[in-house]
């Protein structure tokens, strides 16, 4: 047994040592940024603040009572750290970019810099952590009692002091140390190098102490096998039966939430991180540390159960085993190890919570009521912040103490810790949504966390007070006003579950449900959208979309005044001078650009949180006239203007397209119009020619004097001929016009094409003989049926043969006609040995009113023949074309598909 005085003196000396370590750590960090303090090893050790006295003492107790369950508390963090790349790296990057100072700051900043969400998260954290602080107080007092021995109690310095008094003393001392450690200055990044150094040292001490006890126990018990065989002899069974049940899963989930969301874990892992690459080391080193911490838990628990009296508290085996073996020095070392676990947790947790309280509750109040002292020392806001934090630390430890006071009758340490874990786990859905899901909205997150917290308070926190309040135990039995389905440990009829699993299930599932549905149903504000993109796309973008300020009214002086009040004179001056140097101007002439204001906001955010910094700068920059809401409205309006101009652009593009189409249509119309003019002009010419003869001869006949009978007869017959020609011309024009419209004045039916060809040759016989010409026949097909009209087909052949006759000026004029059937097509060729058709005219011969240039004036045609023929053949699904023929002149070929039989 050790004397209580000695134990307490040792503790005080140990804390003194920590203080010296922290002090020199701070100085060293300031002097040299690359000191060993800034190494992955120290970073990893500081993360092990996760292993509190609950681990040190409680895990042994937990193992003794519930078997392997204690392992889940390590398994969750192991998963998170092994998978550091997915969540932790993202959190660290975001927090560095946005100068995030706490979980509350992260959520508030992400969800539109909402101060309300910051307040909510802070309040829940402070209340939720109280049991956890109480746990540490309980562990410290119990361990002092255990190591000093009940017999020593009430002697020396502890005369007249019971465990409550002891806890109060411990709490007060912790508050004092934390204030001395953590609130000596306000730092931009809220990094506390000195404290981290001390925490890292404590991590080494607690690990060494537990390992020492473990090795001692194994030595004492004669090896692992010895311990288990002794236990078996004594009938102690290490219970592993209830391992993998709902409670096991629950604690796994809760420990995952805790390693991310616990204020102190967020502080050391994210805020205190100075180099992202340290996560790489921590990713394996921290799980390794936890393995070392847990490796001796089972031997100590089993050996304790074997050799210690039945009424011994299993939580204290790490102390009582060495004591019972007379190893006072080892017991003292173990005590210091447990004490280290408790103090490091209390110090860091209260620092982290005090930052949240001061940034999210005190600072907005100060800003709102404009009560920031205008101190001449330039430390106005800084000193307010420090006072606020000190006050917050006292508040937090007081809450912890009061919770301890109410629940001191409970023996076990582990369940108390899990109450806090469940409270903090309410942040996890929001936190993951914040960094992975852009659609998550402020309203949904606020509602989800609030409801989760209420369910936690009802089903988890309240039942823990049952032992001190008969009212609460009645409530547990019968529900409020006798409503059974609202009983805290059997909500909505879910009975028979482990209370912890029950509370975690309802609070987290309803939390997630509200968050998801709420986010899908509500639409985020402009600022939320901006922040959502900045957070979720943190690895995709560089730089921050912080363009919420309109520079103008604010001068560098105004901004300096604000910066000085928050950051202190030295840092404000350094910041402004650096900016001025970058721009190459005198600091007095510095123009506040949006980029500079954005940077200043981030610096301020490091001290007073994102939302407070934003409100504060908004006031200054906008001259106090423009509120945050108006700022956001401006951002929205800008967005609308952009969308509107995009719409305009789209519309004008459509107009351009329409105008282009109209232009094309217009050009087509003009083209058609000129074609029509050309046609009319040609028709006019063709009509005027016969009309001229008719008129002229009529006039001659009207003055019959001097005309003989022969002349009279001749002139009258010319008039008659020309009238016939005119009629034929008009018929042809109408015919062609109808054909060109696609009309057909006949019915297509199988006709004998050969017969039509023969008829045409005989019709042309007179014309041929008149010219002294003959038809040479080439190959001839037999009777061949094609789809068409016999007369029309004959008309085409007559046209072709008469053309060949009319335009043939050869000395021995010849017309060559052949017909054949080639692969289902009836082919007729009409060739002559005339002048042929020049290359340039080949394209024109089927045009209307085209006449061979060498044709004599007596042809009597209007130049519509070939155009009509081609249309007729087309209407019979055939082709009329000009080809290279067997004779030197032109050769026209008709091709028509053969139908029906071929005989």
């Amino acid at each position, binding site marked *: 047994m050790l004397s209580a005085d000695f134990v307490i003196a040792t503790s005080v000396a140990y804390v003194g040592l920590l203080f010296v370590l922290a002090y020199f750590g701070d100085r060293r960090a300031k002097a040299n940024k690359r000191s060993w303090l800034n190494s992955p090893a120290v970073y990893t050790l500081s993360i092990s603040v996760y292993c509190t006295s609950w681990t040190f003492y409680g895990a042994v107790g937990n193992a003794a009572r519930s078997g392997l369950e204690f392992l889940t508390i390590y398994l969750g963090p192991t998963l998170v750290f092994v998978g550091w790349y997915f969540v932790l790296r993202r959190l660290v990057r975001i927090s560095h970019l946005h100068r995030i100072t706490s979980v509350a700051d992260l959520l508030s900043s992400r969800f539109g810099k909402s101060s309300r969400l910051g307040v909510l998260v802070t309040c829940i954290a402070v209340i939720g952590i109280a049991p956890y602080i109480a746990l540490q107080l309980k562990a410290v007092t119990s361990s002092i009692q255990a190591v000093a021995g009940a017999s020593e109690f009430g002697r020396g310095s502890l005369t007249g002091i019971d465990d409550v008094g002891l806890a109060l003393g411990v709490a007060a001392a912790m508050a004092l140390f934390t204030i001395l450690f953590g609130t000596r200055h306000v730092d931009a990044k809220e990094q506390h190098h000195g404290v981290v150094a001390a925490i890292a040292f404590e991590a080494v001490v607690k690990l060494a102490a537990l390992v020492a006890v473990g090795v001692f126990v194994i030595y004492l018990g004669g090896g692992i096998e010895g311990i288990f065989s002794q236990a078996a002899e004594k009938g102690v069974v290490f219970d592993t039966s209830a391992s993998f049940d709902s409670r096991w899963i629950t604690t796994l989930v809760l420990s995952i939430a805790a390693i991310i969301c616990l204020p102190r874990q967020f502080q050391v892992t994210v805020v205190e991180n100075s180099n992202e690459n340290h996560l790489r080391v921590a990713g394996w080193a921290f799980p390794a540390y936890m393995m070392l911490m847990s490796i001796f838990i089972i031997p100590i628990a089993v050996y304790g159960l074997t050799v210690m009296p039945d009424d011994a508290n299993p939580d204290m085996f790490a102390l009582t085993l060495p004591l019972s073996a007379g190893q006072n020095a080892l017991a003292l070392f173990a005590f210091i190890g447990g004490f280290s676990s408790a103090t490091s947790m209390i110090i860091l947790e209260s620092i982290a919570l005090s930052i949240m309280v001061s940034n999210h509750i005190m600072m907005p109040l100060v800003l709102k009521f404009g009560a920031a002292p205008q101190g001449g020392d330039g430390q106005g806001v800084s000193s307010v912040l420090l006072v606020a934090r000190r006050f917050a630390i006292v508040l937090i430890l007081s809450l912890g103490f009061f919770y301890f006071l109410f629940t001191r009758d409970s023996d076990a340490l582990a369940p108390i810790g899990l109450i806090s874990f469940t409270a903090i786990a309410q942040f996890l859905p929001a936190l993951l949504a914040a960094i992975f899901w852009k659609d998550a909205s402020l309203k949904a997150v606020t509602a989800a966390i609030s409801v989760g917290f209420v369910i936690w308070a009802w089903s988890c926190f309240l039942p823990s007070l049952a032992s001190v309040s008969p009212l609460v135990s009645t409530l547990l039995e019968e529900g409020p006003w006798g409503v059974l389905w609202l009983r805290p440990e059997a909500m909505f009829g879910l009975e028979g579950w482990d209370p912890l699993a029950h509370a975690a299930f309802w609070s987290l599932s309803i939390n997630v449900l509200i968050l998801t549905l709420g986010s899908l149903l509500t639409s985020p504000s402009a600022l939320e959208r901006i922040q959502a993109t900045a957070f979720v796309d943190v690895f995709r973008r560089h730089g921050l979309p912080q363009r919420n300020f309109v520079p103008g009214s604010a001068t560098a002086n105004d901004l300096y005044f604000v910066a000085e009040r928050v950051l202190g004179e030295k840092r404000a001056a350094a910041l402004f001078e650096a900016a001025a140097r970058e721009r190459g101007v005198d600091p007095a002439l510095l123009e506040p650009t949006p980029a500079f204001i954005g940077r200043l906001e981030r610096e301020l955010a490091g001290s007073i949180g994102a939302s407070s910094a934003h409100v504060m700068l908004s006031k200054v920059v906008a001259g106090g006239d423009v509120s945050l809401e108006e700022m956001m409205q401006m951002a929205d309006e800008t967005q609308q203007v952009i969308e509107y101009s995009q719409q305009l652009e789209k519309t004008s593009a459509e107009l351009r397209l329409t105008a282009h189409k109209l232009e094309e249509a217009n050009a087509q119309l003009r083209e058609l119009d000129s074609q029509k003019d050309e046609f009319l002009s040609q028709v006019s010419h063709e009509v005027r020619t016969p*009309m001229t003869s008719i008129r*002229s001869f009529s006039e*001659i006949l009207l003055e019959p004097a001097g005309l003989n009978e022969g002349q009279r007869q001749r002139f009258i017959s010319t008039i008659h001929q020309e009238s016939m020609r005119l009629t034929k011309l008009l018929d042809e024009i109408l015919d062609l016009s109808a054909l060109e419209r696609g009309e057909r004045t006949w019915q297509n039916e199988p006709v004998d094409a050969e017969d039509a060809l023969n008829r045409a040759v005989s019709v042309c016989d007179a014309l041929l003989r008149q010219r002294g010409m003959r038809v040479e026949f080439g190959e001839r097909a037999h009777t061949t049926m094609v789809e068409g009209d016999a007369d029309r087909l004959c008309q085409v052949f007559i046209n072709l043969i008469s053309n060949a006759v009319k335009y043939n000026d050869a000395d021995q004029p010849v017309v060559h006609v052949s017909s054949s059937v080639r692969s289902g097509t009836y082919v007729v060729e009409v060739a002559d040995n005339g002048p042929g058709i020049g290359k340039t005219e080949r394209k024109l011969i089927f045009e209307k009113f085209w006449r061979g240039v060498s044709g004599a004036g007596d042809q009597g045609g209007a130049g519509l023949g070939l155009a009509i023929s081609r249309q007729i053949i087309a209407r019979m699904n055939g082709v009329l074309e000009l080809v290279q023929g067997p004779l030197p002149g032109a050769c026209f070929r008709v091709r028509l598909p053969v139908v029906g039989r071929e005989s």
Partner: protein
Amino acid sequence: MGIDVLIAEDEPSILESLDFILRRAGWSIESVTDGEAVLERVRRAPPRVLVLDVMLPRRSGFDVLKQLRADVETRDLPVLILTAKGQQQDRRIAEELGADGFVTKPYSNAEVVGAVRQLLGEND
């Protein structure tokens, strides 16, 4: 000795009517039926007046007129243009090329005879 009127017209019945009315008016007449023949005939022995149809084979009436006006020998030959395309555009082209008269088909016989008489300088 030169003739009074040379007619250049490819449409046989129109040529016959022109021949008849101009002969009846008392002038000596010759005729050609294509553009090339006009130039050749005029160069060989210029008539006193040329009655020139626009739509001639081988060489159009306007082309013939252009050639005549370009040649010093035939520059001053009085030319009466006949056209079946009664458009303003043809009249303008004829004037630009230096035609002395312009008659649209179908013409009245008196109109043609009057125009030729004027060009022959036989106004009463």
